[in-house]
C-alpha cells in the first residue's frame, strides 16, 4: 500500500508538470487581455504601459519557468516563513495577480473559508441526504418512494443553478424574507447569534448546491446498494438470524459504501474548486467566484494558479480514492 502510494505520487509529478504546461499554453493562446476591464477612456498607450508593468513583455517560456519556480519554491518558502517566522522568502517575487497586484495566494487564502463553509456544508448535507435516500430507494426498489426519488433527482440534475438559485432567492429572500439574498463574507462565527446568522445566510446556497450533489450521489448509492442486495452473503446474514436493520445497514451498506466513498473522495476537489455558478448567484465570493472573475479579467497568473491547484487536487484525490478503495476493501491490495 505504501509503495503503491509513493509510486503513484512519483508518477504524479511529471503528469502535473505537463498539466501545468498545457494550462499555461492554453491560457497563452486564449484571446482576451488583462486590460479589457480598464475603461475605454484610458488610452491604448497607457494600457500598453500597464501591460509591460505586469511583465507581459517577456517571452512565454521565461514566464512559464518563472511561474514554476514561484509556485514550487517561492510560495512554499513563504508558507514556511509564515509558520516559523523566518525570512527565507524575503525579497523574492511571489506569484502576483494582474488584477490587484497582490500575491495570488493571499487572495486564495481569503477565499477558502467561505468556499469550504458553503460548498463543504452542501457536500456534507448532500451526503447525509443522498445516502439514506439511496439506501431506501434500493431497498424498496420500484416503490413509490423510489420512483419519486428518481424523478426528483432527474429534475435536480437538469435544472441549472442559475435558474434554481434565482428562484429560491425570489421565493425565500424576496417574498418570504426568511433568508438574506446576499452572503456576508465578513461574518465571524463567535457566538450562537452569529452562528444562527451564518446558518441563515448559508441556507439557500447550500440548498441549491445540495440538491444537485444529492441527485448524483443518491443515484450512485442506489445502484451500489442494488448490486449488493442480491449478493449471497446477504442471504448468509439473514440465515444467521440477524435483524433486517443489521443486514442492510451493516452488511450491505458497508459493501455498498466502498465505491460510493471513492466517488465522494473524487468529488472533494470540487469543494475546493467551489461551485462557480452558485457562488455567483448568492454572492458567496469563494474560490469559484475568484476563478470566474479572474477569467473575466484575464488575470492569467490567478487563473493559472487556481486551475493548477485544482489539477493537483484532482490528481491527489484520485490517488486518495484509490488508496481508500484499498483500505475499505480488504480484497484489494495494491503492491
Amino acid at each position, binding site marked *: 500500500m505504501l509503495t503503491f502510494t509513493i509510486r503513484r505520487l512519483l508518477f504524479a509529478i511529471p*503528469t502535473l508538470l*505537463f*498539466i501545468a504546461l*498545457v*494550462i499555461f499554453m*492554453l*491560457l497563452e*493562446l*486564449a*484571446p*482576451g487581455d488583462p486590460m479589457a476591464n480598464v475603461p475605454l477612456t484610458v488610452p491604448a498607450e497607457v494600457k500598453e504601459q500597464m501591460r509591460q508593468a505586469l511583465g507581459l513583455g517577456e517571452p512565454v517560456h521565461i514566464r512559464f519557468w518563472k511561474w514554476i519556480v514561484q509556485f514550487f519554491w517561492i510560495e512554499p518558502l513563504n508558507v514556511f516563513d509564515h509558520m516559523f517566522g523566518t525570512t527565507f522568502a524575503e525579497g523574492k517575487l511571489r506569484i502576483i495577480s494582474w488584477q490587484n497586484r497582490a500575491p495570488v495566494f493571499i487572495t486564495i487564502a481569503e477565499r477558502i473559508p467561505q468556499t469550504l463553509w458553503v460548498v463543504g456544508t452542501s457536500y456534507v448535507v448532500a451526503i447525509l441526504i443522498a445516502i439514506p435516500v439511496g439506501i431506501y430507494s434500493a431497498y424498496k426498489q420500484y416503490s413509490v418512494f423510489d420512483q419519486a426519488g*428518481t*424523478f426528483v433527482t*432527474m*429534475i435536480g*440534475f*437538469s*435544472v*441549472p443553478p*442559475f*435558474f434554481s438559485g*434565482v*428562484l429560491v432567492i*425570489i421565493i425565500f429572500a*424576496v417574498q418570504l424574507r426568511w433568508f438574506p439574498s446576499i452572503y456576508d463574507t465578513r461574518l465571524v462565527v463567535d457566538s450562537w447569534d452569529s452562528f444562527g446568522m451564518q446558518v441563515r445566510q448559508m441556507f439557500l446556497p447550500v440548498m441549491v448546491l445540495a440538491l444537485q450533489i444529492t441527485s448524483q450521489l443518491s443515484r450512485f448509492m442506489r445502484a451500489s446498494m442494488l448490486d449488493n442486495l*442480491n449478493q449471497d452473503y446477504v442471504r448468509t446474514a439473514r440465515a444467521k438470524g440477524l435483524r433486517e436493520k443489521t443486514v442492510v445497514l451493516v452488511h450491505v451498506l458497508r459493501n455498498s459504501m466502498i465505491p460510493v466513498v471513492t466517488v465522494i473522495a473524487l468529488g472533494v476537489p470540487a469543494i475546493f474548486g467551489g461551485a462557480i455558478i452558485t457562488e455567483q448567484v448568492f454572492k458567496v465570493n469563494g474560490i469559484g467566484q475568484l*476563478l*470566474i472573475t479572474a*477569467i473575466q479579467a484575464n488575470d492569467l497568473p490567478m*487563473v493559472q494558479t*487556481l*486551475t493548477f491547484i*485544482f*489539477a493537483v487536487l*484532482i*490528481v491527489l484525490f*484520485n490517488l486518495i480514492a484509490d488508496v481508500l478503495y484499498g483500505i475499505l476493501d480488504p480484497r484489494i491490495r495494491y503492491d
Partner: protein
Amino acid sequence: MTDARDPLTPVGNDIGVVAASAAVAGAEPLLITAARSQWWDVWDQFRTHKGAMVGAAIFLAILALVVIGPLFVDMEAGIKSDMRARNEPMSLEYPLGTDRLGRDMFARMIAGGRVSLAVGLTAMALSLVLGTLIGVLAGYFKGLDGPLMRLTDLFLALPLLPLLLVMVLLFREPLTAAFGIEVGIFILIVSAIGITSWMQTARIVRGDVLALKEREFVLAARSIGTPSRRIVTRHILPNVLSPIMVSATLGIATAIITESALSFLGLGFPPDFPTWGRLLNDGVPFLELYPGRAFWPGLAISLVVLSINYVGDGLRDALDPRIRGR
C-alpha cells in the same frame, strides 16, 4: 456441479427450458427460422416498459413539435419584433405569451428547441463516441491504458472555460467561412462540448472493458481467431452499452446547459438565434415579472432530460437479451 445461472435471470432460463423441451419432443415446427429482425424483439421488450413508453412519447412529442411545429406556427413571429405586442401574457394568439420585443415565445421555444436538441444530441453523440473509443482502447489494449488515462486526467484537470475560449478563437473564423455562420458555429459548439465532456464516459467504459476482457467469451472469440478489432466491435462494445446509455442520458442535459452557458458568454450562436438555454438565461432576470419566460424553457430542458432518462432505462433493458425474456 450446478448449472451456473446468471443471477439476473432465474426465470429467463426456464422459458428457454420449456421451449427446448417442447422442441425435443418435436412439438415445435422447424419453420420459424427465418431471421426475424432483432429490432423487433427490442421493440417488443421496449413496449412493455411503461416508463420508457411515456418517456418516448413525451420526447417524440417534443421532437415532433420542434421538427414539424414550424409548418403550423408562424416562425417569423418568433424572430421579428412586434412593438405592439410586447410582454403579452399567454393567449390564443401567443400560446406562451411574448417577450419584451414582442416576439412570440412559442415560436421561439420551437426554434430554440431545434437548436438545443440538435446541439444536445450531436454533442452527446460526439462525447459518447470519444469517450467510448478512448475507454475501449484504454481498457482493451494494455499499452494504451497508461497514456490514455493520463490524457483523461489531463482533460479532467483542465479549466474548461479558457479551453473553450481558445477553441472558439482558433476555429470560429475558418469554420464560419467554410460552412456559413449557423452550421459553422453549430460544428464549433458541438465539438467544443463534445471534446470537454467525454472523460466520465471513458472512465466508466474502461472499467467495464477491463472486466469484460477477462470474460470467457472474449477468450472464446480469440480462440476462434477473431482479430482484436472485431473482438472489440462484436463482443466488447455491445456489452458496454448500458453504462454508455446512462452517460448518454446525463450527457444530453449537460450539453444543453453548457450550450446556454456558452451563449451567455457570447461564444455560442449569434444573439438572434434562440436556444432553450439562452431563453432560460434571458428569462431569469424577469422571473418575478414574467415567470413563464424562464419556466417554459426550464420545463422543456427538464422534460427532455427526464424523458430521455426513462427512454434510456427502457432501451437498456430492451437491448439486453437476458432481460428481454421476461
